[in-house]
């Protein structure tokens, strides 16, 4: 029995009312769903609330999962993505077009991205590994448009293949690749341009 069959059996048990099966599903997928929510929303608190909403939605709609159409992982990601889009479509968290010189979190006395990226003594790899730089990348990711952000999150953070991403986003595979490329390029420009400005 491969992984897909095992997961499908788990889902069938859950649909038939097995609470232990549902607990197992929650244990298996909560980390992944939380990470998608966290990288998309940019806030740990929002991510926790959104992940709970995702599981509530999953619990109610688990009976609609069709094993012939997609894998359970793809279905879970689709549910998560749709809920995130619905949540953020209200406009509150639409693309933020702040200047790169703006301080994150609207803190007037905070450091700019350029200031925070400035670390003349370390190599790029060392900076990436530092916790501070991770925050900068995370902040830059929040500044991508939602279309580009969700594409790069699914590809580079969740390691999904293009075909599954196309199913989740409901767009052609070529569009998925284009969005991923644009997202990566925009993120790199956002970070590198400030690093150059800082120097």
């Amino acid at each position: 029995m491969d992984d897909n069959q095992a997961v499908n059996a788990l889902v069938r048990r859950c649909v038939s009312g097995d609470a232990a099966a549902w607990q197992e599903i929650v244990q298996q997928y909560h980390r992944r769903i939380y990470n998608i929510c966290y990288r998309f929303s940019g806030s740990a608190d929002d991510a926790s609330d959104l992940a709970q909403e995702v599981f509530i939605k999953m619990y109610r709609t688990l009976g609609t999962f069709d094993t012939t159409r997609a894998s359970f992982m793809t279905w879970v990601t689709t549910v998560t993505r749709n809920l995130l889009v619905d949540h953020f479509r209200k406009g509150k968290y639409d693309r933020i077009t702040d200047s790169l010189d703006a301080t994150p979190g609207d803190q007037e006395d905070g450091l700019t991205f350029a200031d925070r990226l400035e670390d003349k003594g370390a190599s790029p790899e060392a900076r990436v590994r530092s916790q501070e730089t991770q925050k900068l990348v995370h902040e830059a990711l929040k500044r991508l448009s939602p279309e580009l952000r969700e594409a790069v999150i699914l590809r580079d953070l969740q390691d999904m293949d293009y075909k599954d991403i196309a199913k989740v986003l409901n767009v052609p595979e070529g569009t998925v690749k284009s969005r991923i490329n644009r997202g990566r390029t925009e993120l790199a420009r956002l970070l590198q341009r400030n690093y150059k400005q800082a120097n």
Partner: protein
Amino acid sequence: MAGELQSEMQCAQVEALLAEILDGTLQGETLTGCEAHQQSCAACRTMVQEARAGMHWLNALDEAEPPANLVHNILAKTIGALPSEHAPVKQRGEGWLEKLKGRLAPMFAPIATPRFAMSFGMAFFSITMLLGIAGFHFADVRHWDLSSKGIRRTYYEAQARCMRYYENMRVVYEIESRVRDLRRAGTPDQSAQPQQQQPQQEAPAPNQKNPSKTENRQHGTRPQTYSRDNGEPMLATFPAVMLAAIPQARQNRRTA
């Protein structure tokens, strides 16, 4: 052959193959053509470098650690049960009230939200305000007579109030008056015919033009003093006439 491909490779093709270039899945002549094009085209070379840098930035991000109570919260909100490793120690002597709360909590979880509470509060406020405007006060409830006799009396009083309200409406009088006018206009001969037949009968005494109530009872007739009969046409908008027509209209409805 490879030389032809290199010369034919365009920027758009390199851009379309960018994902495969970064994934390292390009092979053979296509890979060679892309590399050759990048060497000759600065824009494509920069594009590939930027996309690769962005991919490295993203791949370097660590997985975020979810809160410790996330699984507990999810299970509490869905099945209302807790996994064994997250379940709190069950206290001794847990009463039936706690058990009932535990069973009802998941059922009421969807409505136990701030939005629902706000909607419920607004609805309650609106209903209370409307009842206040309508004259209903909760403080008066204790003065209510809830015996069967009292309820019956309240019912008849309310019915009578409604009837009075309806009968005192100006528009009702006007409609009734118009209907009477139309009936009279539609049957002009019926009113004239009895007048012609009257001389054949015994001539009435002079005091029968305005007979008293006692005389009417003796003759089995009732005073005909309203415009519905052969009197003067009644103006619907004239208040005095309308007031005079009220008792007859009531009598007509009751007999009807």
